[in-house]
């Protein structure tokens, strides 16, 4: 029999929830932990594996099922969690030395909801320190690798979560987005990754990087699996004032409907062109052609301010980061370097605790907010962000969805961009604008390059159309046949 881990999530959970079915949550969790033990030495997707806790939670769930209790839609599904989300009793490091030894006192809202739905947290995954990066090489605890080519990066910052799902270690994972940190690794690892509409998912228990951009997002091998996790984690939360409920509107219904008549936006500023990989360009063209063949129409349009996406993002995100990361001062938690007076204790603890990229962004943000420069940088960037949002509203009056590449290129080699911060920032050129504008966007698999590297296509919809977008992802798979394909490494362990 194939591994239960390879079943669609809904089917897996239905088996576990059925007391007459022989498949138990304990078996599923055991299969996940065995794959992690066999493969993660090469991938380094996990920073912490909670064997004992996962087995205990699985046994508890099986007991409840045996007693005839109803369990949730993720019953027995192993879940990997990016290590910037709080899971009660487990380490929470953000892949930073500054949080070494920190144990989370409570569950993030998304974790509490996933657990209540029956998901079993098996461990915490690697990331770029404080989610700042696009390759998962900025981790203080060592880089993660791409399951399709171990010499390459999985993308980032949620690279550990993406690699864990792609390698078949877990069916589902949680990541977080600030400028593309779910979609870009999903694209580079050949899976589905969703950036929800800002406010759709609670940020309570997510370590803040840039609060006006941050959003927790789900990963899965299919759009259906990803939607199953999205439905569980979303909704208003009294512990996050920016969260709210999004009723299913006509935009979502349109995306979930027939492809005939669907207006597919092709935005000039999201075209990869000569700067990107020709195989990525070809993959996007194939997807668009498949949509057109089924009755969709292409609408060519321009969103001029998208050209300023990276500059605006790299003012706004570092500015908010410099403020949010001020809390890491060596007093209440985290690493402390002793000094005879308080200011030196702060400054030395922060120098020793933060890695180079985090310091770079804190300095950039401090500069952008400093006296004499705040008007020219921060206020100006926020003004452009408001204008970009208006241009997006206008764009969605003319089309139902934007279809583009997620990343201009497939997975790059480890170390290739590590010495060039700006080159790393430009990895996010196609994703940051959705964070700045706030809308939902998903990356879905769109085939592989001749070298076998996955390529992703980004679907971006109007605010609140999340579940429609994920439904469109499933329709697209049906239309193109382009789906997740397990890497060779995943077939080593049954």
């Amino acid at each position, binding site marked *: 029999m194939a591994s239960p881990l390879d079943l669609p999530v809904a089917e897996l959970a239905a088996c576990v929830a059925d007391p007459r079915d022989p498949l138990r949550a304990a078996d599923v969790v055991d299969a996940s932990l065995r794959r992690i033990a066999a493969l993660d030495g090469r991938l380094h997707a996990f920073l912490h594996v909670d064997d004992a806790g996962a087995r205990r939670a699985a046994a508890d769930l099986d007991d409840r099922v045996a007693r005839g209790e109803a369990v949730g839609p993720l019953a027995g599904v192993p879940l990997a969690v990016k290590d910037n989300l709080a899971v009660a009793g487990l380490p929470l490091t953000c892949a930073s030395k500054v949080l070494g030894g920190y144990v989370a006192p409570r569950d993030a809202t998304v974790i509490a909801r996933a657990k209540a739905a029956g998901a079993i947290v098996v461990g915490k995954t690697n990331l770029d320190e404080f989610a700042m990066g696009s390759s998962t090489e900025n981790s203080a605890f060592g880089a993660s690798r791409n399951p399709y080519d171990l010499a390459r990066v999985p993308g980032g910052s949620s690279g550990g979560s993406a690699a864990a799902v792609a390698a078949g270690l877990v069916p589902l994972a949680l990541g977080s987005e600030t400028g593309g940190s779910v979609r870009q690794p999903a694209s580079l690892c050949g899976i589905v990754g969703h950036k929800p509409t800002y406010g759709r998912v609670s940020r309570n228990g997510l370590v803040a990087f840039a609060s006006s951009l941050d959003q927790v997002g789900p990963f899965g091998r299919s759009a259906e699996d990803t939607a199953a996790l999205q439905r569980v984690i979303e909704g208003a939360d009294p512990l996050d004032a920016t969260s*709210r409920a999004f009723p299913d509107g006509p935009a979502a219904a349109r995306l979930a409907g027939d492809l005939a008549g669907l207006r597919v936006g092709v935005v000039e500023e999201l075209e990869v062109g000569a700067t990107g990989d020709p195989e990525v360009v070809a993959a996007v063209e194939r997807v668009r052609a498949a949509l057109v063949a089924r009755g969709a129409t292409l609408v060519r349009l321009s969103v001029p301010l998208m050209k300023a996406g990276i500059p605006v993002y790299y*003012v706004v995100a570092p500015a908010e980061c410099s403020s949010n990361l001020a809390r890491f001062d060596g007093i209440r*938690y985290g690493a402390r370097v002793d000094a005879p*007076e308080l200011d030196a204790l702060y400054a030395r603890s922060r120098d020793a605790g933060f890695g180079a990229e985090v310091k770079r962004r804190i*300095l*950039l943000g401090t500069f952008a907010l400093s006296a004499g420069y705040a008007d020219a940088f921060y206020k100006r960037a926020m*003004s*452009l*962000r408001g204008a970009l949002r208006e241009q997006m509203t206008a764009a969605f009056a003319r089309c139902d969805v934007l279809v583009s590449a997620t990343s201009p290129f497939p997975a790059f080699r480890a170390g290739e961009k590590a010495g060039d911060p700006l080159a790393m920032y430009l990895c996010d050129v196609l994703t940051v604008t959705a964070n700045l504008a706030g809308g939902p966007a998903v990356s879905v698999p769109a085939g592989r390059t001749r070298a076998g590297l996955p390529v992703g296509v980004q679907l971006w919809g109007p605010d609140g159309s999340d579940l429609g977008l994920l439904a469109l992802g499933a329709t697209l798979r049906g239309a193109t046949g382009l789906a997740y394909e397990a890497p060779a490494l995943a077939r080593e362990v049954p």
Partner: protein
Amino acid sequence: MHVTDALVRQVAKLARIELSDAEVAAMVPQLDRILGHVEAVGSVDAGAHDPAALDPVPSATLRPDVEAPSLDRAKDVMRNAPEKDTMGVFFLVPKVLED
């Protein structure tokens, strides 16, 4: 915008990060290149827009200000303290007041 050694040191001071001389030297050309790119925010035409649309927390969504249970101090909060007093209820810091 030209990033200098002095500017990096000034910003690091504001950010409370004690950079080594080697870190400052590495940071100068990196920040210069990054700022050279993000300076584009000054030369793009934004047109007219409504800044209120950017408010992430419309006041109507705020919950009532009602007292509710918080974290347990001894069990949850002090457990992560780098240094605490012998009773385990206070964070220890260097002396901040003169004798």
